[in-house]
């Protein structure tokens, strides 16, 4: 009897862990499924034209997404130029200067801001920037993305600054450095590498955002000069092309999807490598 029970419990152990393993396998295989499918459908449509030509009018085959690629770059550049400094400096405040209550409030608000649906961020920037300017623009799209970068950068900065050992801080103070000198010349340089890498991840993530761009940056079938014109971007192009009824557009949507995904994966993997290499070096010392 007891041995039967024992067998039963062993069987349950085995079966449940196998099922859990299958669940893991299923989750992980989704990524490879997505990548494989995009390569299969999109690779054949990636050519020189894709990177250098403007979209062709409906019905004409060929053309590319050069304006969307440049548009995405400009949007992300603006977003990073605005969002990263704001997030970084606030992160420095939280890690080095903050007291108790106010930083807790800021952290909570940042977390909530991080959880705001991106489409709602789009509405906010529409009301704040697009309505007064009376036009969609790269500026509005970039600000919408910047707003999504800030909370991520802030928490990353705080986390990595806190990881700097206190002995470094104490050494700097003992040498007579004032607090801001200690922060600026010891703590920040010691963590700069990790902070930058983490920030890069946050920036890469917003590069794939579509919803906040729909009614801020809008879309454009031509080049968008300057910063105050509507602009195309890769994610919005993918959306527009995927739901359109034209075979040739679907082909291009696959190609754009592949380009977007591969560049995001590349940034993520590179950042992960850099971070884990630093970690290994630290612990090896």
């Amino acid at each position, binding site marked *: 009897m007891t041995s039967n029970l024992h067998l039963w419990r*062993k069987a349950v152990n085995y079966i449940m*862990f196998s099922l859990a393993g299958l669940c893991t396998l299923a989750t992980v295989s989704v990524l490879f499924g997505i990548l494989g499918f995009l390569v299969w459908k999109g690779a054949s449509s990636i050519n020189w034209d894709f990177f250098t030509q403007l979209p062709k009018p409906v019905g004409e085959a060929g053309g590319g997404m050069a304006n969307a690629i440049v548009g995405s770059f400009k949007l992300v550049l603006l977003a990073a130029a605005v969002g990263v400094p704001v997030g970084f400096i*606030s992160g420095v405040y939280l890690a080095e200067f903050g007291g108790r209550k106010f930083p807790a409030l800021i952290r909570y608000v940042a977390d909530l801001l991080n959880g705001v649906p991106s489409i*709602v961020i789009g509405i906010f920037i529409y009301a704040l920037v697009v309505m007064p300017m009376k036009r969609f623009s790269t500026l509005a799209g970039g600000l919408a993305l910047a707003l999504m970068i800030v909370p991520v950068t802030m928490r990353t900065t705080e986390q990595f600054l806190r990881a700097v050992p206190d002995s470094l801080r104490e050494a700097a103070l003992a040498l007579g450095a004032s607090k801001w000198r200690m922060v600026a010349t010891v703590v920040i340089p010691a963590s700069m590498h990790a902070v930058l890498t983490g920030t890069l991840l946050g920036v890469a993530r917003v590069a794939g955002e579509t*919803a906040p761009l729909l009614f801020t940056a809008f879309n454009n079938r031509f080049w968008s000069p300057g910063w105050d014109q509507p602009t195309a971007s890769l994610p919005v192009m993918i959306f527009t092309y995927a739901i359109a009824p034209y075979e040739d557009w679907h082909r291009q949507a696959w190609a754009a999807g592949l380009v977007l995904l591969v560049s995001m994966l590349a940034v993520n993997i590179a950042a992960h490598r850099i971070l884990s290499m630093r970690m290994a070096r630290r612990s090896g010392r």
Partner: protein
Amino acid sequence: MKAQLQSRPGWLQRALKQNPADLAAHLFTWAFAAGILVVAVLLVYELYAASSLSRKEFGWSFLLSSEWDPVQDKFGALPFIYGTVVTSVLALLLAAPVGVAAAIFLSELAPPKISDSLTFVVELLAAVPSVIYGLLAIFTMVPLLREVIQPFLQKHFGYLPFFQGPMYGVGLLAASLVLAVMILPYIVSISREALLAVPPEQREAALAVGATRWEAAWQVVTPYAGLGIAGSIFLALARALGETMAVTMVIGNAPNISASLFESGYSIAAVIANEFTEATGEMHLSALIQLGLVLFGITIIMNAIARIMLAATSRKGQTR
């Protein structure tokens, strides 16, 4: 009393005693942090102010009316709330068991090296843009649903109200499935962290009294990490409620309220994405912004619950 006051000077005195450069740096960084607070307040204010037209016209009945008629300026949010909640909850029901099981596997059985690399893949999955999920869903999952899965469900479970009606592929079921796949990585990676934070003594004690590894994982470790796992599920729910692109691409975009999951539906985020730039009048735009306000409210509540749960678990871990 006086001595106490002197030993604990007010913040102003403390600030003035500081090195002026330190004070400047403090104020400078403080201003940026406070700026985040200002932006958050501004966000709520803008949503509130920009939706005033529709809020005054419809009031709370906005939430309960199922009429959405831009031509006659009659707007109600019910079909969109219904579509949002049904797809998100169904996605959660599908994803939570798989995600938690995977998290248990990764934290309790897999060797650390394998667990770390698999978790990295899961985190990459979370970085895949939602428009790419939508793209794949339109061209792979929707035909599969239409040709294979929906006919199967209707044939064998057609007596249930969920699986009746015409089979288009797109609809509530398609949206739920995409959402389930999209929120899976969040559940796995946050639940895994909660499980890893459980002190090893808990496992050792269970194993020492003769539990199998599964019994230790399921009856001891998982309940201990329960709050963190619940937090991960709420966080995933908040993500699902606010998810826009993938849902817009497969939900069918028709404001129906139907028990059948095969039927087309509409979610709050999807209707905003589709109609915002084509809004016919001020009332239409205002109603869409009010929908945004509703969505904002729902996700903020879900997030707040999730954060409280996760904060409680990390405190629990620290006190050990």
